[in-house]
């Protein structure tokens, strides 16, 4: 499949590399040219420098023929807007959006977007670990 990844930070760059290693075609967009370095010199896909809110940038990265789209910039609202563009304007089949704010992630999940919320994941894991500890404590005491 062909994937467009927006945001070449720790998350976006690693997702792009993983998919490319699996043999998929991947193009990456970031507004910062230096972000290209995160992909490594052997990255086979194209890197487009630009602001993803601009349709010319999305189209230069090939969004019109994309099977999947990943929105992983460091801006929740940017991610939410470009994800909706990918879904509603370019009719991309698989759209995944990273949203740090759990409230907005939940709201847009309910509106049909596939959201990934690292904050929610962290909260769940921490609570889970603490509850497991508390339960073990109680059992020991009993």
């Amino acid at each position: 499949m062909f994937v467009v990844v927006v945001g070449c930070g720790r998350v976006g760059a690693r997702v792009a590399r993983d998919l490319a290693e699996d043999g998929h075609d991947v193009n990456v967009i970031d507004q910062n040219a230096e972000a290209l370095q995160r992909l490594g010199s052997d990255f086979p896909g194209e890197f487009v420098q630009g602001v993803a809110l601009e349709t010319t940038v999305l189209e230069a990265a090939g969004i019109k023929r994309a099977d999947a789209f990943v929105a992983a910039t460091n801006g929740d609202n940017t991610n939410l807007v470009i994800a909706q563009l990918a879904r509603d304007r370019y009719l991309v089949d698989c759209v995944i959006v990273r949203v740090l704010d759990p409230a907005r992630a939940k709201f847009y999940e309910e509106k049909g977007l596939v959201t990934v919320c690292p904050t929610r994941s962290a909260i769940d894991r921490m609570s889970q670990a603490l509850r497991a500890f508390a339960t073990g404590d109680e059992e020991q005491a009993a």
Partner: protein
Amino acid sequence: MYAVIVGGGKVGANLGRALLRMGHEVSIVEARPQRYATLESEFEHMARHGDGTEIFVLDAAGMARADVCIAVTGDDEDNIIIGQVARDHFGVENVVARVNDPRNQQHFDLLGVAPTVCATESILSLIEHEGAPALAGAPVLAEAREPGGHRDPGGGGQPGRGHPGGRPPDAPGTLVISVLRNRVGRVAAPDTVLGAGDQVVVIAEPGQDSALMELFASE
């Protein structure tokens, strides 16, 4: 009527003042701490500090009972999200959003955030309609003085006799929206400097027109 204004820059603050004067209830949400402090000294409890794209901030600002949400931050993606959250999460029936970059207008349209106001587009439509009766009673269209006289923008607008140049007038109750120079329209910024021949679009409250004209006519 209760209006929640998100974005307390010049546009948001002036809208707040105008709505208050009209007897409406207003909250202004502003994320930048310094700007918030300025707003708080004028609007007191009606100014609220926080990221207006966060649902809990909008909740605290009473968005659920708002009759209208006005999204006028400087970021188009924020204005789109504010508009969607106000309408679909809080059930606000009237949403008005500001488009900062006219190239993003299509995104507002696609994602159902309407109506929108875009200063650049407004100016362009004024220019296109220059000379048309539509201009009568529209925002004051004044022109900075050109050496050797000014060009009449025509069409029933109220041409100023000329501004000597320099910073736009900071008159109470008026707001310089945009500057047209060499047929290129730009949104007026705090550091905008007027030059001879510039045309400006200014919103003035009723009764402020003549004071504004005097500023532009100052020799």
